């Protein structure tokens, strides 16, 4: 069974790698004394857009600090245990099959060993208590993210895409989008999480730790994105065939850009003017598309699949897995299973001119 997902178009990451991260990784390599991790020091284009070590907000940064502390402490402890182990191996006498077993010492008791073991155990207990305190403190700091003026987004996970509803005190200003979250930089966001079918998990590592979305339950997650850029999130709980293809794009942008984007999202789709696009719209509304998709401002109002009102404004198709472009869109509509085997979107064998018209229409949905 061949999978035919085409390579993602790589987008320039808004922010360069954080040098301290690689210092930490290099430190890990040194302390743990294992493999040279330096191979990743020069990341390929796009690397780090889904990376817990490169933070774009305070929540992820707090966790990264805790990671560094734990890495340092555990590294030192590991080094100490290995040193003791190495010294023991190096200094111990050698024996063979015929070495008479040593029974006298164990029978008499070995106070020196006992003292050392007790001391090491005591030190471990103290160190562990320290780590527990650090962990609890971080946990509390995470819970204290100020939420005044927070943006409320209701995020619902489906097999295998994300539905986002931006709430507003004024109901007419709420709007819906899919698979691409835009967040204003520096403003806290309160996500309300639901699952429509099975358990999924929301995870944008650059911004925050993960939170499960469980059917029949509601969870919330607060985060703030400070550094503008494009981040990639991905479902982190196995959710069926296309678990691997359930990504989420998070665009963090300055307030003004965000406000402009949100304003655009609130507007219904504009009726197409170009005759080809008009034909495409008719095909859309009369065909299979409207059975699952909605386009605000038209009769298409189904909510089983991503809202397409502003499809052309999104960077990617199919839950962050296919770059958005005319050719890819046409290929996706014709045979989605070629990109994401198991997807619930059926394939279509449109006549070429129909497909062109449909794509032309979708391209107008900016």
């Amino acid at each position, binding site marked *: 069974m061949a999978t035919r997902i085409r390579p993602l178009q790589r987008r320039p990451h808004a922010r360069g790698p954080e040098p301290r991260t690689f210092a930490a990784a290099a430190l890990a390599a040194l302390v743990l004394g294992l493999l040279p991790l330096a191979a990743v020091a020069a990341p390929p284009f796009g690397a780090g857009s889904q990376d817990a070590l490169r933070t774009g907000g305070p929540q992820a940064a707090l966790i990264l600090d805790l990671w560094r502390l734990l890495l340092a402490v555990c590294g030192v402890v590991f080094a100490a245990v290995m040193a003791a182990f190495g010294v023991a191996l190096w200094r111990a006498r050698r024996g063979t099959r015929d070495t008479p077993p040593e029974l006298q010492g164990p029978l008499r008791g070995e106070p020196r060993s006992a003292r050392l073991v007790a001391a090491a155990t005591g030190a471990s207990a103290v160190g562990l208590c320290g780590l527990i305190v650090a962990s609890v403190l971080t946990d509390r700091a995470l819970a204290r993210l100020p939420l005044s003026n927070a943006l409320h987004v209701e995020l619902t996970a489906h097999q295998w895409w994300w539905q986002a509803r931006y709430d507003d005190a004024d109901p007419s200003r709420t709007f819906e989008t899919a698979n691409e979250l835009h967040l204003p930089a520096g403003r806290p966001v309160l996500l309300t999480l639901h699952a429509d079918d099975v358990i999924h998990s929301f995870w944008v590592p650059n911004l925050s730790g993960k939170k499960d979305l469980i059917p029949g339950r509601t969870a919330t997650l607060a985060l703030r994105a400070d550094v503008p850029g494009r981040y990639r999130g991905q479902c982190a709980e196995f959710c069926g065939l296309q678990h691997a293809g359930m990504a989420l794009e998070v665009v963090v942008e300055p307030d003004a850009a965000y406000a402009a984007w949100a304003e655009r999202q609130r507007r219904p789709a504009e009726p197409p003017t170009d005759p080809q696009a008009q034909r495409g719209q008719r095909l859309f509304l009369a*065909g299979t598309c409207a059975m699952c998709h909605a386009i605000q401002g038209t009769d298409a109002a189904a909510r089983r699949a991503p809202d397409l009102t502003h499809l052309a404004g999104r960077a990617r198709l199919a839950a962050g897995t296919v770059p958005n472009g005319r050719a890819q869109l046409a290929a996706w509509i014709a*045979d989605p*299973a070629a990109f994401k*085997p198991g997807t619930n979107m059926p*394939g279509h064998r449109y006549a070429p001119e129909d497909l062109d018209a449909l794509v032309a229409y979708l391209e107008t949905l900016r």
Partner: protein
Amino acid sequence: MCSRCRERCHRPRPPRPALGLALALSLPLALAGCEREARRLELPPSAPLAAPSKAGVLYPGPYASAPVRVTAADPVVRGQRVEENAYAVSQGKRWFRWFNCSGCHAGGGGGDMGPPLSDDRWLYGHELPQVVASILQGRPNGMPAFAGRVSEEQAWQLAAYVRSLSGQLRSDVAGGRSDAMGSGEPEQRREREVPRPDAAPPTVR
């Protein structure tokens, strides 16, 4: 867990002679397993379906003797494949919910504004191609035509699911209970309703 296995005395017996025979017999079952479990994720997209003509909906009526030929070359073979595949039937269940079939026929197919789908009355034929035809062509008194609205694969899957609502499918293919509020008896546990031959079309209101 349940048996209290105890060490007591015993009486040895000769071994089972028919083990090989049983294995041989289980082979067809095993192959049925293969068919039941396949997930055909890479089917080529369906052929284009003609949009329903406004002029007249094909109306085979309740007594249609021959299965209505839809579009696939061999609907019987195709239907059999769908009806023996648990994944296809479960996808049918998904479409049943997504396309709001339950809006008229109720969640478990118990019937509401539309006729029940879980009983022994089939107004327009109970065989799979007939059900597909009903879905694609629509029927009087409110059943819309879905030709052009659903892909052909979806139509077959929907029809197979609809037939599972009255226990027409093997219980190892039909679905289990839904993860939702009261949707009636799980399809796999439904008694097979023998389609009544005397079913009459509903009177036109």
